[in-house]
């Protein structure tokens, strides 16, 4: 599109570019500002925070708030920091991501390579599941988890996240496998390979990119989830997002903004890390998720 500038004079072109870059930088500053504030606040002392202002650089850098947020900050009456909740999150996010991705891969494989009568209807049904506001399933799910004996437990959270993540993972894999020629499966069947052999030996080796997309999407979604965490877990079983919110809302004693910000960064670091390492795949997941619309 920059071609369109060819018709303009050099002077106005230069001015135009300058304005353009200025605008882009202003927006970049705006988007980075909260992160900057979070990081600087987290390494300030409380006195420093009170004396200075939002964007002032810290007088001295102190990681005390970080250690407090991790190990000793009070959430309600318990003063053990976020570390337990961080591990909680890890312990249900990892299995939930892996299970939902694997099942999604199988579903996508069946829905494209082994279509049968009614399989498209099934897919549409599943797809609509992406759109329901989860409030509509909270009450029955709370009951059901109780019946199954996995209420307020890590397996319970794994279960919930797998169930409501399947629609997305299935969508990812199905949309990817649609682009894989079905002749491959046919050729392999004639070569004597069965359902699982074809999956492991032919289809899965084609899928690293979409697996990464699915894993990143699921990881981000489940790690960042708050609703299921706050409804289906309590106390020391809570995931990090819920613990962060409780920590910030704990109103005993002095408000320690530096601890709050450290806690927020700790909660945000894993997904931020994934974003920095594999942003391309993150974006692909987002736009693939968007295609559903």
């Amino acid at each position, binding site marked *: 599109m920059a071609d369109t500038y060819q018709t303009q004079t050099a002077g106005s072109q230069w001015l135009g570019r300058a304005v353009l870059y200025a605008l882009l930088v202003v927006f970049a500053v705006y988007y980075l500002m909260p992160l900057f504030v979070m990081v600087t606040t987290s390494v300030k002392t409380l006195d420093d925070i009170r004396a200075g202002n939002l964007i002032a650089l810290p007088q001295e850098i102190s990681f005390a708030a970080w250690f407090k947020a991790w190990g000793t900050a009070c959430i309600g009456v318990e003063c053990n920091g976020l570390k337990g909740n961080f591990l909680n999150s890890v312990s249900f996010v990892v299995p939930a991501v892996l299970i939902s991705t694997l099942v999604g891969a199988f579903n996508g494989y069946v829905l494209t390579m082994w279509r049968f009568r009614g399989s498209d209807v099934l897919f549409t049904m599943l797809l609509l599941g992406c759109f329901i506001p989860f409030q509509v399933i909270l009450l029955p799910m709370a009951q059901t988890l109780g019946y199954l004996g996995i209420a307020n437990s890590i397996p319970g959270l794994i279960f919930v996240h797998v169930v409501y993540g399947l629609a997305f993972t299935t969508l990812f894999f199905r949309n990817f496998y649609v682009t894989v*020629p079905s*002749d*491959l499966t*046919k*050729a*392999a*069947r*004639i*070569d*004597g*390979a*069965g359902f699982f*052999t074809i999956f492991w*030996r*032919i289809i899965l*080796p*084609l899928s690293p990119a979409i697996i990464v997309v699915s894993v990143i999407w699921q990881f981000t979604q489940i790690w960042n989830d708050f609703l299921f965490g706050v409804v289906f877990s309590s106390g020391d079983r809570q995931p990090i997002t819920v613990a962060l919110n409780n920590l910030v809302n704990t109103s005993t004693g002095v408000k320690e903004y530096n601890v709050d910000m450290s806690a927020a960064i700790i909660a945000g670091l894993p997904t931020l890390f994934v974003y920095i390492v594999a942003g391309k795949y993150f974006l692909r997941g987002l736009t693939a998720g968007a295609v559903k619309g």
Partner: protein
Amino acid sequence: MSTLSIINVKKRYGPVEVLKGINIDVEDGEFLILVGPSGCGKSTLLNMIAGLDTISSGEIAIGGRVVNDLSPKDRDIAMVFQSYALYPNMTVRNNISFGLKIRKIPKDQQEETVNRVAKLLQIEALLDRMPSQLSGGQRQRVAMGRALARDPALFLFDEPLSNLDAKLRVEMRAEIKLLHERLDATIVYVTHDQIEAMTLGDRIAVMKGGEVHQLASPQQVYDDPADLFVAGFIGSPPMNLIRASVASKEGKIGVDLHDGGETFFLAAPDAVQSGLSAWNGREVIVGIRPEQITDDMARGPERTDRVKRNVKVDVVHPTGPDTLVLIQLNDTPVTCRVHPETRVRSGDTADLMFDLSKLVFFDPDKETRIR
């Protein structure tokens, strides 16, 4: 014994019948072509033979064994796909040996087979490449190699050449033909290209609308089409099909034609005389191939089955080996094939020789042959 019997096979998708009772017997070592326009059911039939599609009713037997209930891997077949369907994550070598591996053939035997097939197809240098590093023609060879490695009772080809450019297509066609002669394999080959059908097949099954319209040798299909569809489908440029009235002249039955001016009479071959007499005074469709209207006087003077006429020429299309001349007969454009050195110009008239020995006649309503 690698025979194939297709016995009254039907395919229904819900209420829609896409194959309406197919009966074909293929002998050991025979090269059968399934040809027809898209949607005629030829690929469905091939998939049913392969076991990739279920059979609604009827039976398919390979080597004397009904395979309706067998899965593709137990049918002793190999298939070459239009898209080649090479496994993208495997080298050429592994592509060829995959089927052997699955069948737990010993390693050394696998290797031997791969080498034999690679030599046969001259792809030895490509064995360690990935499919993405191959050209279209090379992929085609590998796909065939994969089929050959299995040494099956029956080879199935699903439009294997349609993704190649014209030159390569001709080359591969010749090679497939050679391979068939050398291996004596039984082959069912689907194509929509009637030239491929004519050059490759021992027999051709011309299909349309889920039915076999004619099953015969290429020459027979060409010279003696079973009905109007086959006549129009096989041949390029296609057979001229002209509506004309049946008349009799000097004791012979034939048709009246005109090129805008004078009406002339073409007598039917002797074999159709009695059949056509029932149509005297009514309209039929007469079929005549372009090469049966020529400027070739060398083959001799006018006889009862060779008539010379001077007709008005509309358009001249030089093609190189021949020149195609378009004329109008009974207000229908008619293509004639003349020698390229013959000087004919649009708007002029030309002397053309009509070879009447191969005239064919069709019922204009039922579209069947009149014999």
